[in-house]
């Protein structure tokens, strides 16, 4: 019964989304006030219907209605309740429904807060969002329906993929989609602005909080995905430059450029053009990512099992939305005022560099991700482009950006003199000195030196800036948090990647060996069953420092799916992580163990968390200022720039 209800709600939502797509846009073109007025209510109804559909899917999973094919594929009686809920987005169909539900939620939120926007503009925004929603709901309804029946209903389901039975999994897709899909709002604002008769920069002010919110959510979503992969996959890596990871990272890179451009677009026409293009491209990359994950063209740990016919549908959606919006851009961009030139060393010039470097970085990641595809299509050669490639080409683009990041807030608008930078010179020398010492004493790696120097410079420079302008902390905090986050992140990644060690040992229970100069004892091996799995748990103690570290990695076998999973044991601290994973057992009862030492691993998480925190604060600080003040305050060159004030 609930399955049919969900199905009905879904189809009704499709009709509403189509109405939302067509009527407001037509109404805006033709001046039909009544159709324009329909935009916001339709958005609300769409959200309501999709909420109903999604709720029925969740309900079906919770009660284990195995007559619904999706539930049988992704849940089981032994699955704990919490994971039965998250099973609703554990598979392709369900996660797509989540995708479009979050889109409708954003749309409804925008509609609710569009009171101050011109009605025509708001209607166009809803129209664009309606188009995207309609496209995806159609995709779900006709090719990936989670409500399909499976009759006769089997006694039990196939259980959720064990990789996904984890609290991190509960939060990763919703958070990721909040960001990923949230860029659709920026996209809609940009298209609506392009459709206006007068193409000006007001839309950037309205779009700013939405884009910042999406960006913060995406930062947190990627962070959580990485954090989860680290402890769940059992290999100790946290970023693999996997096609699906890149699919979420590319919108993030352009989104970062976008939030910086939106902040200045009203005052600087050149950045209006950047804002338009970036807003269109960021969401386009989100769509590309959705395609890559679900079409089966790239093999990946993340990729959903999909067939090419689904891929074709998304590709058409992609082609229409991206092609259509970029064609519109090409048509209308002539109406924009011409870009001015900027003096070298001015803040505008540095912001331009910021955008160029981020765009280059995005292009590079795109190249690496799609190259194997292209090579195979063009010449039939199967190539792999993996972490070694990206680790070679990406840092040379991003490290200069992190370094310039310190100069940006110090540079003057229109001015060329960087006299503000002089006080920071001692810091720069200290950073370089520390890096050189570190590099030569530990290992002569250029990247270690460059990364440490840049990270220290970024962190120190931002802290110095924060201290210098501590009086205006409310406006400045967002920038300080985010930029400090980048500094800490760069330090963390550089140090972990350069200094991490991995040791493979084989031990039987009761034996001990020396790893990295300290004694590792295999204390005992015991069975540790769980609700839907059997496990072998090894208890190890490693004598490093005063008290020995207790580590308990496991090897689990999930009954329903007969899949073996490694649960790594991680001993975390601010300065290093110890990561132990259990491999296979030999015929003679000895187990393969991989012991990894990862210095400064926690800094990677802290850095990313601070970035997301900066975004959130930027949102909160923006909302706290009464609207009347926004127009009154002049843009003083000494006030720390934020991304949410003019």
């Amino acid at each position, binding site marked *: 019964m609930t399955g049919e209800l969900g199905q009905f709600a879904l189809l009704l939502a499709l009709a509403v989304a189509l109405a939302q797509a067509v009527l407001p846009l037509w109404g805006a073109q033709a001046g039909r006030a009544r159709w324009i007025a329909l935009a916001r209510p339709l958005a609300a109804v769409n959200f309501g219907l999709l909420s109903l559909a999604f709720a029925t899917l969740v309900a079906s999973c919770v009660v284990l209605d195995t007559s619904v094919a999706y539930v049988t594929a992704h849940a089981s009686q032994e699955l704990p309740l919490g994971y039965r809920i998250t099973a609703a987005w554990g598979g392709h169909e369900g996660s797509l429904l989540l995708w479009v539900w979050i889109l409708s939620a954003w749309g409804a939120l925008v509609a609710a807060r569009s009171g101050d926007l011109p009605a025509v503009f708001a209607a166009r925004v809803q129209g664009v969002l309606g188009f995207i929603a309609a496209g995806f709901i159609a995709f779900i309804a006709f090719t990936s329906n989670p409500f399909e029946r499976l009759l006769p209903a089997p006694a039990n389901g196939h259980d959720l993929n064990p990789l996904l039975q984890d609290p991190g999994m509960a939060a990763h897709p919703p958070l990721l989609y909040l960001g990923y899909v949230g860029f659709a709002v920026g996209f809609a604002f940009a298209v609506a602005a392009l459709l206006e008769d007068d193409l000006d920069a007001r839309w950037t002010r309205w779009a700013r909080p939405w884009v910042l919110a999406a960006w913060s959510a995406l930062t947190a979503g990627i962070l959580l995905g990485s954090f989860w992969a680290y402890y769940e996959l059992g*290999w*100790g*890596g946290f970023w*693999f430059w*996997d096609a699906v990871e890149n699919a979420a990272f590319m919108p993030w890179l352009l989104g970062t450029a976008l939030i910086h451009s939106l902040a200045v677009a009203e005052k600087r026409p*050149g950045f209006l053009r950047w804002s338009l293009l970036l807003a269109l491209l960021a969401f386009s990359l989100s769509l590309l990512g959705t395609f890559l994950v679900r079409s089966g063209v790239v*093999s*990946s*740990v993340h990729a959903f099992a999909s067939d090419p016919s689904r891929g074709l549908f998304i590709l058409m959606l992609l082609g229409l939305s991206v092609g259509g919006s970029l064609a519109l851009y090409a048509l209308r961009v002539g109406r924009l005022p011409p*870009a*001015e*030139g*900027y*003096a*070298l060393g001015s803040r505008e*010039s540095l912001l*331009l*560099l910021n955008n*160029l*470097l981020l*765009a*280059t970085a995005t*292009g*590079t990641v795109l*190249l*690496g991700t799609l*190259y194997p595809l292209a*090579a195979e299509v063009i*010449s039939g*050669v*199967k*190539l*792999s*482009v*993996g*972490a*070694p*490639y990206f680790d*070679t*080409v990406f840092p040379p*683009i991003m490290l200069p950006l992190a370094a310039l990041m310190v100069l940006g807030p110090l540079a003057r608008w*229109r001015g060329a003199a960087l006299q503000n930078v002089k006080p920071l010179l001692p810091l720069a020398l200290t950073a370089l000195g520390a890096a050189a010492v570190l590099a030569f004493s530990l290992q002569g790696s250029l990247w270690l030196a460059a990364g440490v120097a840049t990270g220290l410079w970024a962190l120190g420079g931002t802290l110095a800036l924060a201290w210098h302008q501590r009086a205006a902390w409310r406006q400045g905090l967002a920038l300080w948090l985010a930029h400090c986050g980048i500094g800490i992140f760069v330090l963390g990644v550089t140090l972990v990647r350069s200094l991490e060690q*991995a*040791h493979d040992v084989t031990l039987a229970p009761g034996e001990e060996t020396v790893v990295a100069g300290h004694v590792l004892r295999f204390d005992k091996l015991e069975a540790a069953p769980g609700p839907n799995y059997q496990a072998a748990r090894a208890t190890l103690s490693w004598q490093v420092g005063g008290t020995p570290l207790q580590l308990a990695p496991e090897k689990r076998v999930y009954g329903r799916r007969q899949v073996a999973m*490694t649960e790594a044991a991680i001993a975390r601290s601010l300065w290093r992580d110890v990561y132990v994973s259990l*491999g*296979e057992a030999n015929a003679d009862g000895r187990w*393969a163990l991989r012991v990894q030492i990862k210095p400064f691993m926690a800094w990677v998480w802290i850095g990313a968390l601070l970035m997301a925190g900066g975004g959130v604060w930027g949102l909160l600080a923006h909302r706290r200022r009464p609207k009347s003040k926004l127009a009154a305050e002049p843009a003083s060159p000494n006030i720390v720039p934020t991304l949410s004030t003019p």
Partner: protein
Amino acid sequence: MRKFIALTVFAAAVTAQAAEDLDTRVERLAQELRCVVCQSQSVADSNAPLAVDMKRHLREGLAAGRSEQELRDELVQRYGEQVLYRPALHAGTVPLWFGPVALVAIGGLVYWRHGRRREGGP
């Protein structure tokens, strides 16, 4: 007697040092090779039987004095180019390796052009 012990300890330390360098070399090489029977994992990270065999093969090869390049080429001959996570530079991969350089150059050009346009307007 003491000299003998000292010599033995020294020899053990040297071989331990050499063994540790071998570990690092194997690890580094294995990180750059793809486990062709896994979804998307490097040979270093994977526990699959093929990956374990490959790591052993690499260790024996390096210990016997063969070079990393030689071992890589041998694996490419057997498994194809897809076994390399860092694609070799040849005609088919020139756009891949020089693409980023080209992008940076284009970015630089754009930046320079913008800088040339001095502010003159009202």
